[in-house]
């Protein structure tokens, strides 16, 4: 058990240590300072020239968002069409079929928004063409969209008074060439050398010891799995995701994949400090996020290591902890850690089946996705956290007797309105989506759809409720992990989560950037001793309190009826 814990601690500490210099490097890249990757300059110039982009054009927040949303729309159409016709396109050695319209709607959105909710299984639902040119492609660009967006926020925080939030295309291209490509290369090579397939050949056939013939899916997977984690995407090549022995062959790859997903979200926090010069502010954010993550991680690990109380009641010893739904090569400690970490940072890749985890883990995973700002996804984690900051600034500003200010700009009705709307939206999407599903499930169980609602859930009672809640929460948080007990591939879930995905992705990006743009264009107010310092631990604690209270108040009833009720019935 000690070795297991050591594995977790080493992973966590190592990745935090690596994130610091990476953050410094990222800040340099976006500031246009000299870095060792400058040899890529000609390549970037070529891309800009070819696309007719002026990377130096100044953009205000509206221009910035316009550029971002337009290109995302194009990607959606492109992905949707390719998925719809993949069966007839090349690079399909296994002769997999095309996706249904509702499934390809869901899949295209899901990957475009960095969620990677997969209502199909990778082995049979995609072809190598769509795996590479839709899924992997979108994994790169969606992660880069998030990073580019947060750099706009950095500009808003850095400048005293400006309407210029930087150039979307410039940040976007550089994120890919300078950050994701080099890092992916490293991770992919490690994976490939540890047994992850990198072949264009179709299914392999093996004969098991029992004499059965088994087809084993393969493909050029290593590269995709690298960006899947580095870009906090989470969509696996194989259906079993990182629990699959080819996707995550051993303990070393497990550690590498874990580190890969934590790396950039944490590095972005440090980048915030280096880029804006407000290092203390960044460190406070880092500690608040780390504390929040640990508060979620520890109970889950304790629960998984402790084993299932229901089994314990039967008088069965569980020296290895709760092993249902987990891989023997990872063990309960690392699986518990992974389960919460992947929800804390919006990756959503799994190395065990969350559906089988202890109710405590389910609670923590749900909470992690409801907050979605303790680290969070690439770039977007900080954007989500920023909304909490604005609300904390507003309330605490009043509490110290001054019109609230953030970074020298007065926070007024308009900014509060946007922040409140974004907060409201998460509650609306998660609770509303779950309510709609529960309503249909209860009142129209036998409606004449291809898949009747009665067939959605593999479990009844509290656990069934948690499955639905989890599916919607995962969609809203752009997480993509699934409580596998539910069948999501049907019209209702594909379409409903499709809308949740798209709203849950873009409004929480548009909101913070709009606020940052509005604030940055206001008159700069110099700090005085009466100004609340937003880089103090006190303010960090305030933000933390705001996050806890908002999350608790919004979701307590839903959690009580799902995982909490299950927890109390097991204990």
């Amino acid at each position, binding site marked *: 058990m000690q070795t297991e814990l050591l594995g977790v601690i080493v992973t966590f500490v190592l990745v935090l240590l690596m994130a610091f210099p990476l953050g410094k490097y990222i800040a340099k890249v976006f500031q246009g300072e000299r870095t060792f990757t400058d040899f890529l300059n000609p390549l970037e110039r070529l891309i800009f020239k070819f696309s007719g982009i002026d990377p130096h054009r100044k953009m205000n927040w509206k221009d910035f968002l316009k550029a971002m949303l337009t290109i995302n729309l194009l990607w959606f159409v492109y992905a949707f069409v390719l998925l719809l016709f993949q069966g007839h396109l090349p690079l399909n050695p296994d002769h997999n079929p095309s996706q249904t319209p509702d499934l390809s709607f869901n899949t295209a959105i899901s990957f475009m928004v960095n969620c990677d909710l997969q209502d199909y299984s990778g082995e049979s639902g995609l072809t190598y063409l769509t795996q590479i040119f839709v899924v992997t492609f979108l994994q790169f660009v969606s992660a880069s969209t998030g990073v580019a967006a947060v750099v706009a926020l950095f500009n808003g925080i850095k400048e005293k008074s400006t309407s210029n939030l930087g150039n979307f295309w410039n940040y976007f291209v550089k994120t890919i060439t300078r950050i994701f490509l080099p890092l992916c290369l490293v991770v992919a090579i490690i994976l490939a050398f540890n047994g992850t397939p990198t072949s264009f050949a179709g299914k392999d056939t093996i004969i098991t010891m029992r004499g059965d013939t088994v087809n084993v899916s393969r493909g050029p997977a290593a590269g995709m799995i690298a960006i899947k984690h580095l870009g906090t995407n989470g969509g696996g090549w194989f259906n079993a995701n990182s629990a699959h022995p080819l996707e995550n062959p051993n303990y070393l790859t497990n550690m590498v994949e874990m580190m890969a997903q934590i790396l950039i979200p944490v590095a972005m926090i440090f980048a915030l400090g280096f880029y804006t010069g407000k290092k203390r502010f960044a460190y406070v954010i880092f500690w608040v996020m780390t504390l929040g993550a640990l508060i979620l991680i520890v109970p889950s690990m304790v629960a998984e290591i402790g084993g299932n109380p229901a089994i314990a009641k039967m008088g069965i010893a569980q020296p290895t902890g709760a092993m249902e739904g987990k891989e023997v090569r990872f063990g309960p400690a690392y699986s518990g850690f992974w389960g919460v970490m992947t929800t804390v940072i919006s990756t959503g890749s799994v190395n065990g089946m969350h559906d089988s985890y202890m109710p405590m883990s389910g609670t923590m995973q749900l909470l992690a996705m409801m907050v979605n700002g303790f680290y969070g996804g690439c770039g977007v984690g900080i954007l989500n956290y920023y909304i909490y900051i604005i609300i904390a600034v507003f309330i605490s500003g009043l509490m110290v*007797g001054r019109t609230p200010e953030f970074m020298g700009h007065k926070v007024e009705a308009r900014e*509060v309105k946007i922040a409140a709307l974004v907060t409201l939206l998460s509650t609306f999407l998660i609770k509303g989506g779950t309510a709609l599903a529960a309503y249909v499930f209860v009142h129209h169980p036998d409606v004449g759809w291809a898949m009747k609602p009665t067939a959605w859930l593999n479990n009844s009672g509290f656990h069934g409720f948690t499955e639905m809640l989890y599916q919607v929460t995962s969609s809203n948080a752009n997480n993509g992990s699934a409580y596998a007990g539910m069948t999501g591939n049907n019209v209702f879930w594909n379409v409903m989560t499709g809308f949740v995905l798209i709203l849950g992705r873009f409004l929480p990006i548009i909101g913070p950037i709009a606020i940052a743009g509005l604030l940055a264009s206001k008159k700069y107010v110099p700090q005085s001793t009466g100004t609340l310092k937003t880089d103090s631990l*006190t303010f960090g604690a305030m933000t933390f*309190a705001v996050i806890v209270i908002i999350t608790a108040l919004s979701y307590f009833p839903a959690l009580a009826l799902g995982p909490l009720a299950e927890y109390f019935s097991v204990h």
Partner: protein
Amino acid sequence: MERNKNNRLFSGDLVGGALKHSFLKLSPKIMVRNPVMFTVEIGTVVMLAVTIYSYTVNDPTIGNFWYNLSIFIILLLTVLFANFAEAIAEARGKAQADSLRKTREETPAKKVMRVGDIFMNEVKVVPSSSLVKGDLFVAEAGDTIPMDGEIIEGLATIDESAITGESAPVIREAGGDKSSVTGGTKVLSDRIKVKVTTSPGESFLDKMIALVEGASRQKTPNEIALTILLASFTLIFIIVCVTLKPYADYAHTTISIAAFISLFVCLIPTTIGGLLSAIGIAGMDRALRANVITKSGKAVETAGDLDTLLLDKTGTITIGNRKATHFWPAPGIQERTFIESVVIASLADETPEGKSIIELADVKGFKAPSLATDKDVRFVPFSAETRSSGIDLPNGMKIRKGAFDAIRNIVQKAGNAFPAETEAKVKEIASNGGTPLVVSLNGQAQGVIELQDIIKPGISERFQRLRKMGVKTVMVTGDNPLTAKFIAEKAGVDDYIAEAKPEDKMNYIKKEQAGGKLVAMMGDGTNDAPALAQADVGVAMNSGTQAAKEAGNMVDLDNDPTKLIEIVEIGKQLLITRGTLTTFSIANDVAKYFAIVPALFITSIPTLQALNIMHLKSPSSAILSAVIFNAIIIPMLIPLALRGVAYKPIGASALLRRNLMIYGIGGIIAPFIGIKLIDMVLALFM
């Protein structure tokens, strides 16, 4: 007429009127201004319908009549309590304003009659209410001034104690910066002719009363932003409650309408929602209690944000004028001889400085001789040209006192040398912030009188306090930079404007504002008016000119320049009260969840009993306790809302920690205790 400075929060007559208004304010037209309480009112109406329905029909899913009736009554009380909070705040403000207004009720006015635009010499006594803007009236010793106005002719001593509570009479005269008179004050001597500057019902006080009454009260920017935040919390809880229905269906639980509405009302921030407007009104009321009339609620709020205060030196930082503090005889001159000539030279000097010289001599045991009867004594008055004054005695003595260079000229013209020691003393005095007055007798330097500004006791502590609030103080003075610097250092102001001309104030304000700062200033003169208008908070003195009063956004009835400090604190208190009560209100919800959610589901999901950490007796007692707590917390916090949460200048972070501990942590714990106690009481009956 002593002004009513009653600080008791609930005096009987106020409560009566406020109770009546609590019901009148139930009108949806008024309620809709407050989205949070408006939704509670809707909930109350629905509950009324449910109560009636449950009386006529026996439907187990609706619950029994008495239970529904209790919920209805508690909800109604919640709304009424909130209305009462607002009404009592208004009533207090109005009572305060009324006591000021009483001073100007019907008094006889000596109106100067006119034909068209030509004023006659005829004076007729009319009731004060018949005066309109532009009329002239005369006021003589013993008269009460009938209406606010500006003196156009004459000078008078006036007792303003009815307005300011200050018993010492003040002088008001035509022209200049002290030409305003206020209705209700009394003329003690002389005769003045006054032009009425406001029509009845349009004075600043009338405007303020209208603000308090809510007719013209506009929400301030922070209030709007807070209302948005509260409205969005309300929306979140609407979502929480609406979605609970399908969740409950899934869990095969029926939740009664009463329970839904109770949950909703408990969750939405009714505490702050109910007290929000009372807090705003109380802020203006507190300003009024400090004898400051504000023209808008926004001005009070802005005061809390001030970064820079411009203060006139004289009267604010120093007491009145300079005083003689030392006599420094020139070498070879006896101190006694020096003092004698100094006193003689100052006998005819009516300036405060001149008088202070005689006072100092008196302290040193030198009695002033009487020269007034001697007809051959010639007084030489001060002139800007000679920059000296003096006296020529019949025995041929010519004594002069004045600025250093003026006297040095006299001395050198007489062929004498100016002693180097005296010159050194002059420089020393100037660099210590004093003003040297040099004295000569028959063309020979006699010595120097040192005049010093007397800094008000306790003023540097007040500036210290302001600095801790993050407010920078700037002293404005006509003194030379050297003197100004010395006094600035001694008084502890952060900056100064020396040799200030009226436009310097304006420029300084603009400069600070360009740097994003909010600036306040106080002024009384017409030449202050542009700067008063430019400043974010301009406080005009009530004794000041009409132009100054029009330009500023506050009027200080006490004419007290240090009032700005109080105004800043009132502004901060206003924001703090809002912020802390919001925090408290939202923190309360944690306990309410633990009371209501288990109560809703306990019958169908018994394991959720584990969430009933307060061990409330039954589901219905739990819900009732939560709703009752939610209602009574409003009246319990009214005193706090009206008095305001205390502001302590301990730095923003420390203040935040303090308020988070009290109102955040306290806000989480308090309802656990309160709900449990109420439940224990209810358990006796249920």
